[in-house]
């Protein structure tokens, strides 16, 4: 028995020693903290051939040149892996020193409110990152002590942006004698022309995000910034039975009734919608800038894009964030890395590979298509037009919206019933977060 007791004591002592050491390693602190670290553990989830993947490979290269003697331990993670495990990882000592993480209340907001992310406010002001990001881009970087985005301290830095637009197949437009619309009326007339010729003008995907985003675009046509603040930042209660949401749901139902959207698209996924557009089966889709690079690579027909006609506000936001976990042992190095990703040459690399940089010098973007993508983004961003995404306000709202708009596509519920179905989970979720 004595032997077992000795072993037990040894185990307990080892455990205490482990926690004490860990506690010494990672406390919050100033900008110079961890500047003498010899390792920078970096995680992100961009594929190596995506615009961000390419840009960040280059940023790592520059970082290594500027920090000789520091080893960069880079690990490519899966999006879902980080999404579902970040809380646990950052609560342990196994986390990285810097990590790409999703923006929003349920992700970066939640972790920041639990003290798992480093407050980057001082560093942001010192290095001027705040000057490079427009107010609507800053929204996703700053969180209150309850983890609600919009204002408060900086907990992440975005390097790129994204927004929803209309992609169109030029060849199909020409073949059917349809002019590129510049107003909302012209847009619906263009769709009427396609319908009259037996072509469904908009590919849709009821089983995933595209349907919710189309609804949101339609609602935003009648919205202003105060609606977005109320809906996304809970500044005031939102009435789902009033415009703009009412108008959005009604317009969506009309799109289905008029044949702008196929009645049998409820089970389709975003990928189905994208491939229908790539293969030239449909003339238009309403979706995000994340498709841009892929269409450039894979589409045989001529194509282009325009901002959703008539909308000042568009679904869109900053991209994901660089966050520095509280347990990081190389915070200073992490800030240096973020700083490199903000440099014009890295930003240009994002832009030249089909991404949307947040602080690029437009003259450095050589490809005309990429240039247009960035110019359109700058237009939206500068007019404070990024309205985020409809599923952001509360955790789990994505599936609520998917279910709601599947009902509209199937015609199994009226717009009024759908608004009821999506209103309750919203108010329950907001209550959960704000306690009001």
């Amino acid at each position, binding site marked *: 028995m004595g032997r077992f007791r000795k072993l037990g004591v040894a185990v307990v002592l080892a455990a205490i020693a482990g926690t004490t050491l860990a506690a010494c390693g990672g406390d919050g602190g100033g900008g110079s903290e961890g500047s003498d670290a010899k390792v920078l553990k970096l995680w992100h989830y961009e594929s190596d051939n995506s615009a961000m993947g390419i840009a960040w490979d280059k940023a790592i290269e520059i970082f290594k040149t500027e920090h000789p003697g520091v080893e960069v331990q880079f690990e490519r993670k899966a999006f879902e892996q980080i999404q*579902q495990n970040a*809380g*646990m990882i*950052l*609560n342990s000592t196994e986390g990285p020193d810097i990590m790409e993480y999703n923006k929003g209340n*349920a992700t970066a907001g*939640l*972790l920041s*409110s*639990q003290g*798992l992310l480093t407050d980057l406010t001082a560093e942001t002001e010192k290095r001027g990152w705040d000057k490079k990001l427009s107010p609507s881009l800053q929204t996703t970087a700053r969180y209150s002590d309850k983890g609600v985005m919009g204002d408060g301290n900086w907990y992440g830095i975005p390097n790129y942006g994204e927004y929803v637009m209309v992609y169109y197949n030029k060849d199909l437009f020409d073949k059917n004698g349809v002019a590129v619309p510049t107003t909302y009326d012209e847009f619906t007339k263009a769709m009427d022309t396609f319908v009259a010729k037996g072509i469904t003008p908009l590919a849709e995907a*009821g*089983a995933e995000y595209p349907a919710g985003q189309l609804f949101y675009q339609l609602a935003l046509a009648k919205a202003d910034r105060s609606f977005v603040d109320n809906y996304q930042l809970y500044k005031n209660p939102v009435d789902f039975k009033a415009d703009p949401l009412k108008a959005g749901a009604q317009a969506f139902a009309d799109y289905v009734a008029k044949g702008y959207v*196929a*009645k*049998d*698209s*409820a*089970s*389709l996924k975003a990928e*189905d919608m994208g491939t229908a557009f790539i293969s030239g089966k449909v003339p238009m889709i309403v979706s995000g800038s994340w498709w841009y690079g892929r269409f450039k690579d894979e589409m045989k027909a001529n194509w282009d894009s325009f901002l959703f006609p008539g909308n000042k506000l568009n679904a869109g936001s900053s991209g994901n964030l660089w966050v520095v976990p509280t347990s990081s042992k190389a915070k200073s190095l992490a800030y240096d890395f973020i700083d490199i990703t903000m440099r014009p040459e890295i930003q240009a690399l994002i832009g030249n590979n089909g991404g949307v940089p947040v602080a690029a010098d437009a003259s450095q973007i050589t490809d005309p298509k990429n240039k247009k993508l960035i110019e359109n983004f700058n237009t939206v961003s500068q007019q404070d037009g990024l309205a985020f995404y409809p599923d952001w306000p509360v*955790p*789990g709202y*994505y*599936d609520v919206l*998917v*279910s709601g708009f*599947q*009902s509209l*596509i*199937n015609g*199994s*519920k009226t717009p009024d019933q759908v608004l009821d179905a999506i209103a309750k989970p919203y108010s329950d*979720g907001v209550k959960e977060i704000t306690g009001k």
Partner: protein
Amino acid sequence: MALTEIEPAKPRRKRRGGGAGYWLYLLPGAVLFILVIGAPLAGTLYLSLTKWSGVGDPTFIGFDNYTRLFQDEVFWTSFKNTLAMIVAMVVVPTLLGLLLAAVLFDVIARRFKPRTAAALRAAFYLPQVLPVVVAGIVWGWILRPDGAFNSLLDSIGLGALRHDWLGDPHTALPSVMAVMIWVQIGYPIVVFMAALQRVDPELYEAAEVDGANWWHRFRSITLAQIRPETFVVALTCTIAALKVFGPVFALTRGGPENATNVPSYFAYFTFFKKLQVGYGSAISTVLTLIIVVVAAVFIWLQYRSERQDREV
């Protein structure tokens, strides 16, 4: 002779140690059970009494999650859908499997070669070998609006029946059920055919000599002889149906409008998407409880049936 030497030793050892020595052999299993099942179960039970987002400290709220659960419409819908899953994963495959196994064993293997029956058995079992998510994705392609099933309907002149099978709340659940029958059918066939092999062929021969037709033989010999296997199949398939997740995740994600939502998916969604770990734990706990009760009932029925057999 060796047996007679060993046999008397047993009761002597039992008397001396009272069986206590055997507990040592149970220790590895018990430790594993506590680590792999007991501790997580206790953890889930505790979490089900809390409100927790997955990070930070859980807040103890007593039975609030359970009160909320029993008033939750989605929870009841998910259990209603489970009944449909039991039909698709237990009732139909067991009945159909019984019939197919008997036909393969008794008719195909006799009229053709046993190898033909074995090949057909393997063909039926194939869906069981496929990872369920892969099968789900492939079936998703088949059932989509421009998928193979609608094309097939077109080509045989039934184009009017074209449909968004997984997108319409009225057809989504029957479609998922059909896929599940396809996935499940091989399992009872293989078990029942193995069971049939241990049935004394003389029973069949004697029955045939007495003039029993196929149906009589199936009912009086096949069904009676393979009853223990039927219990095992029904129990394992019912548990699988109660906790079904993969196919629902791959095919419909519980939609449209919760038409195919099941308790496991509902728990997953609440855990990982809504970040309501406490509530998700309450769902899991109720599900576990139901599975334990169902398993206990089955085992008791099987035990009773075996006892009746012995008494006969």
